[in-house]
């Protein structure tokens, strides 16, 4: 943790090599999160890179009081995902008939693999509930960090998490029976 703090301090002063090490620590997690939310490899890749670019720009203003760096990165990624999904919706409205044909074969295959099961289970949850599960239980963020990323109070998060787990338990029992 101290090592990460040192890297952050160096990067805040403009040390690109230190920022490179931070990138190597977090890029997998950020990509996974983007991939899960966008369901598109290329879009996830672009959003991942854009997240680190934005974080570099805002790094001099970053303070540890406002939360950890990983929460900060996930928050940027989440905002970018929301922007991208808005754009995609607009595009879908424009090219309504071509939506399915635009999805390439590789992506269709990926959809069936890896996260397909997870997505199936979580599809009954709304967006914020999905984010809570992914960030809290899959990415192992603390409650405080999850609250920062989603933008809700910690108390509210606790209540919601409890409700979601109950809901999920029922769903999973149904699935595996």
């Amino acid at each position, binding site marked *: 943790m101290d090592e990460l703090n040192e890297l952050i301090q160096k990067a805040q002063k403009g040390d*690109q090599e230190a*920022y*490179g090490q931070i*990138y*190597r620590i977090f*890029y*997998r997690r950020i*990509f*996974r999160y983007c*991939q*899960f939310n966008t369901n598109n*490899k290329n879009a996830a*890749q672009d959003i*991942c*890179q854009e997240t*680190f*670019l934005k974080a*570099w*720009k805002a790094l001099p203003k970053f303070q540890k009081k406002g939360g950890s760096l990983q929460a900060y990165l996930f928050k940027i990624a989440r905002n970018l995902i929301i922007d991208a999904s808005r754009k995609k919706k607009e595009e879908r409205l424009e090219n309504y008939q071509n939506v399915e044909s635009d999805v390439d074969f590789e992506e269709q295959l*990926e959809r069936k*693999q*890896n*996260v397909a*099961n*997870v997505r199936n*289970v*979580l599809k009954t949850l709304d967006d914020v509930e999905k984010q809570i*599960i*992914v960030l809290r*239980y*899959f990415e192992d963020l603390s409650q405080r960090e999850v609250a920062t990323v989603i933008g809700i109070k910690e108390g509210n998060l606790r209540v919601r998490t409890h409700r979601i787990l109950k809901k*999920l*338990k029922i769903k*999973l029992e149904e699935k*595996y029976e």
Partner: protein
Amino acid sequence: MNDLEQLKKEYLKTEIPLYLTTNGWYDLKQKLNQQESIIDKLFKPIFFAPVLIAAFLLVVIVSMFTKPGSWLYPVKVLSNQAIAELSGKHIGKTEGAKDQDPEIPTGQNPDLHSINQLNQQSPSPEATSEPKKEDRSQKEEKQNPKNNWFENLFFHLENRNHDRGDLQENNHQKKQ
């Protein structure tokens, strides 16, 4: 919770693209360097402030060589005033101030001042009737050394009027 663990394992299976592992950071580094272009550096306060100060000083220095009528002349006047106020003494005079009589108070038009002076020095012909000619010659003697074309012209016109007044008075007396 075992089910959640199972889901987590499946989530973590997400394949990371080779591009991100091999070239991700290098591409990002290039983008970071592109961001800090010369234009960005120029507009950073630390770089921009000296440029702004240098430009201001250049304008002030150039204005020092200007003459009245130039668009930079007001800058010269202002900078001279500022220097005078800061140092507590007048270092140089502006072009207008060079021609000014030291007796003339600042901010007063020199021509108006001379007219006022003349009005004070030369009483009206009605007030003093007899010693006119003597007075006029004395005035001319006093005023000519100043060598001011405006004052000369003013005196010339005034003398002519007085002469006309004298002639009219003489003719009137003769008729009586």
